[in-house]
């Protein structure tokens, strides 16, 4: 496939161009870098692909998602050329039919793509996985996630109130990208669970709610501490107000902070055991659900068993954040034809060449 449609805009200067992009609804509300033809061309070079290569149709607009349009979004977001392969991989992930992007953009639920990067790309992009990794201050994290969002706006056509129907949304809809802190993780990296080698780079993208802090007070003198941790994590997903409890069956994510991961590993827990135990504990009480206003369809009966997850592998576990009291649960939507699945895509490196004007 090749791209066929382009619109070239003109403006008196950079400031006027930014204002024009705002007026056209092409931004996320924040100022953007003006995607001049020269800047876009350099970003295209950094992807390593031809400008007119089409990655797919992005919903709900079913816009033709070509490399030059993705590069345009990356420029607007403030990406460096080094970030381009990661942006392309993230776009490929959300274009995968299992991701249900069209439905995700259109839902009234507050859901946004969480991008987790593994492998060497974390280093050559400068992606951060430690303290405040989902907060401000880290250019690669901020701009790669933002570039993905700008493709969803300008190619996918997701605009609030007409095609992106999230009733309130959450700040992660601006950007939500981080690296797994592999250096401080005692567990296998997330992408290796999908068959990638540790020295390969990959993005894993999952539609999620905003992160929910899970407070864990580690007590090394308590022989039951690890089991208590599992119950706390499970509670974050089995809260009857969360879709994971009310609808059930989707995938969700848990970012273990390095202290929590280290404590579990030093007590003999593998990541698979952590995941299995949390999934086993994440069962919503039918009584509590029935007493709430959160169930859809038939009222839950007391004898119903309502596990939040269908399979242990539906809970993605990775290590990120600073060490301390809090890990983070990412509840999810649990809807759409594929029930809110994660998609992992390799970051293809070695495709690009040296970019003129960029050291």
């Amino acid at each position: 496939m090749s791209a066929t449609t382009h619109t070239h805009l003109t403006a008196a200067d950079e400031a006027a161009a930014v204002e024009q992009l705002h007026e056209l609804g092409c931004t996320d509300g924040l100022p953007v870098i003006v995607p001049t033809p020269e800047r876009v061309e350099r970003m295209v070079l950094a992807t390593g692909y031809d400008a007119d290569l089409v990655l797919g149709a992005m919903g709900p607009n079913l816009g033709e998602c070509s490399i030059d349009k993705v590069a345009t979004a990356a420029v607007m977001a403030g990406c460096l050329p080094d970030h381009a392969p990661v942006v392309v991989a993230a776009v490929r992930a959300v274009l995968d039919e299992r991701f249900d992007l069209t439905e995700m953009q259109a839902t009234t639920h507050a859901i946004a793509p969480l991008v987790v990067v593994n492998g060497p790309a974390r280093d050559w992009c400068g992606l951060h996985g430690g303290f405040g990794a989902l907060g401000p201050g880290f250019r690669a994290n901020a701009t790669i996630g933002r570039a993905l969002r700008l493709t969803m706006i300008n190619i996918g056509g997701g605009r609030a109130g007409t095609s992106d129907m999230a009733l309130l949304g959450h700040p992660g809809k601006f950007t939500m990208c981080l690296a797994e802190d592999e250096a401080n993780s005692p567990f296998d990296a997330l992408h290796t669970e999908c068959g990638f080698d540790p020295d390969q780079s990959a993005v894993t993208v999952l539609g999620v709610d905003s992160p929910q802090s899970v407070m864990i007070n580690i007590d090394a003198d308590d022989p039951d501490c690890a089991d208590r941790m599992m119950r706390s994590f499970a509670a974050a997903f089995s809260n009857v107000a969360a879709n994971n409890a009310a609808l059930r069956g989707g995938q969700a994510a848990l970012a273990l902070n390095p202290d929590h991961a280290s404590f579990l590993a030093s007590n003999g827990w593998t990541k698979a055991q952590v995941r299995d135990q949390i999934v086993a504990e994440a069962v919503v009480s039918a009584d509590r659900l029935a007493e709430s206003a959160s169930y859809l369809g038939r009222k839950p009966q007391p004898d119903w068993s309502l596990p939040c997850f269908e399979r242990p592998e539906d809970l993605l576990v990775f290590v990120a954040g600073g060490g301390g009291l809090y890990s983070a649960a990412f509840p999810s939507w649990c809807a759409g034809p594929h029930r809110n699945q994660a998609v992992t895509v390799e970051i293809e490196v070695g495709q690009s060449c040296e970019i003129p004007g960029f050291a």
Partner: protein
Amino acid sequence: MALVTTEFWAQGDFIARSVGIPDIPRVELPHPVAGSGVENMALVAGQTVPAIVAALRGSS
């Protein structure tokens, strides 16, 4: 033929255009209908039937 509430009318237009059926017949309902009670739903249904019939006959 689609039933669309006022809050989602613009989205209906958008999706209809994006999937290439901009003229798909639609009937507008007040918002919200879901959860508004059987009595109100019956009232809405009664008020909407003529528009539904017209849309199905292609005369809307």
